[in-house]
């Protein structure tokens, strides 16, 4: 091989390595970018106890007959939307009437994400669990379908999957024979998004649901709870619910 040819080959190799390095860098950078968009919190980080997710629901702003939060929840979580006694409902509109004065309220009822959840206490296998950031979930891998948590929940917030499922949302795996309930749309929360119900309520212009970090004094929910009176449903049980109501 001549001296000239050897130089050319070296040059080509350098060019190739350079181009490769640029491409690899670009790929890695875009990957990191995409990753950072998709996961504001790395999965291995786990949920942090420095946060506690909560929701404040203003019943006076909840639209009469509006069901948008329920519909959005069903779409997000792949629920059928059927309302038979065996169908799953993560969130439902509750109509309540004060028997003393006849005053009526409408409000969405969902898992209250208690600090001391009875469902977690009673679960024999530990499938019912509370994340460090306060979200109460069912581990679908170790739920044996005994339904004791449904007996224990004071809010009737849980459903049992009574039949095989098809066309599931891949982000929200569900399964026949397991218990399920509102997760605060944990898959969205982990991306720094709002739960589907809250987003739908805001889109409708009702602004009846505020979601945020109860431990962050600067969050809208923490400020609202500090300045306005709110109630817990079944406060007598001392569960310190993550969901609070105004207007009742």
């Amino acid at each position: 091989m001549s001296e000239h040819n050897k130089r050319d080959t070296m040059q080509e190799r350098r060019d190739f390595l350079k181009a490769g390095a640029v491409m690899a860098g670009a790929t890695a950078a875009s990957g990191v970018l995409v990753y950072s968009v998709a996961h504001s919190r790395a999965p291995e980080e786990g949920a942090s106890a420095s946060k506690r997710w909560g929701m404040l629901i203003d019943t006076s702003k909840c639209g009469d007959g509006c069901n948008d939060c329920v519909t959005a929840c069903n779409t997000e979580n792949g629920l059928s939307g059927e309302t038979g006694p065996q169908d799953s409902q993560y969130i439902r509109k509750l109509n309540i009437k004060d028997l003393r004065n006849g005053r009526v309220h409408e409000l969405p009822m969902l898992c209250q994400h208690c600090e001391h959840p009875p469902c977690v206490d009673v679960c024999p296998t530990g499938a019912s669990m509370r994340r460090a950031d306060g979200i109460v979930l069912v581990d679908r891998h170790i739920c044996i379908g005994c339904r004791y948590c449904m007996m224990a929940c004071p809010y009737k917030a849980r459903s049992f999957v009574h039949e095989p499922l098809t066309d599931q949302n891949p982000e929200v795996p569900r399964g026949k024979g397991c218990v399920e309930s509102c997760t605060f749309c944990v898959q969205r929360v982990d991306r720094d998004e709002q739960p589907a119900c809250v987003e739908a309520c805001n889109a409708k212009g009702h602004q009846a649901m505020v979601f945020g970090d109860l431990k962050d004094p600067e969050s809208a929910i923490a400020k609202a709870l500090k300045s306005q009176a709110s109630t817990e449903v079944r406060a007598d049980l001392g569960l310190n619910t993550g969901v609070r109501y105004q207007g009742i």
Partner: protein
Amino acid sequence: MANENCINQGNCRTPQFLMLLGAGGLVVLGTLFAFFTLEHHGHVLTGMNNQVVWGLPHVFAVFLIVAASGVLNVASIGSVFGKQVYKARAPLSGMLALAMLAGGLAVLVLDLGRPDRLIVAMTHYNFKSIFAWNMLFYNGFFAIVGLYLLTLMDRKLKAYSKPVGFAAFLWRLALTTATGSIFGFLVARAGYNSALMAPMFIIFSFAYGLAAFLLVQTAMYLWNGLTLDERVLARMKTLLAVFVAASLYFTVVFHLTNLYFAKQWDYERFILLEGGVYTTLFWVGQILVGGLIPLAILFSPGSRKSLALVSLASLLVIIGGHAQMYVTIVGGQAFPLDMFPGYEMSSSFHDGVVAGYTPSGWEILLGMGGIGIAFLATVVAVRAFKFMPQDDFSALECEKD
């Protein structure tokens, strides 16, 4: 072949034995058919729903589990309290306890949403859960009562029967306390959430267990063409009457306690007056058939010598026991949760209304399996081992009640 396994070589009645096996086997086959069908299609085929999550299978299962711990009382009275009549019946009592517990647990497991994950239930324990504690108590019960049976039936181990029997007695009290607490610890529901549940379940177990024992004992005596001694019958039927009366007493106290708390009035009105099938089952099933009529029979002068009357009373106690379980388990769930006291509620999720529940045939098949398994185990055990009570009448004469 079947004759080789028969302890009573003189009169094995093998064809009849095979018929019993066949009958029990058919029931269990039906249960397996129901189980696989539900496992495939899901609980959509049952009457259970998101309001009534525990239905008829649990009624059968919890009855069997409670009665299983109660049936061991016969052995405990013999071993722990030294009563001769009961000592002679200790092995039969221990064996029945194991058979009934196995039947009850089988139904509970087969009704799980994910029965294939039984191993998960055995390997993941949440020690704050009374349900998890129950699993430990059930497994421990098999081990301790199994050991107890060994000490009763093996001459070399006979000396240990008293301490092991005492341990079994304490264990069964703990087990039924835990079973009652499954309901007692449910703070949210008006029908449960009571410390009385644990002792009340213990008292119920005394009555249901002894009633089941008396029925099996009667069947065994009839099968072998023997006559149960009147003195033995008189003692056992009086004890059953005491247990039935105590069960009634606890039921009255439970409801009186609720009636004292204003917040519980709606639930009491539901069970005692306006609950339809639950009210009927409470008054007719639990109180009349399972309580007052058996008491009247057991205290009637004729019952002292009548095996038929005592057996009838026992059968009624068992029927009443199932009614009680239905009222407690299903009635307690059918009554709506009161999330907003003083408010009327309605929703698409059946809030504020009495939940509907009609058990399907699959649940009946599943539930009957518990009785089927207990029956099969008993039929085989009494044929292969010496469980027939051997009364020592000279000791009986000396012993005071």
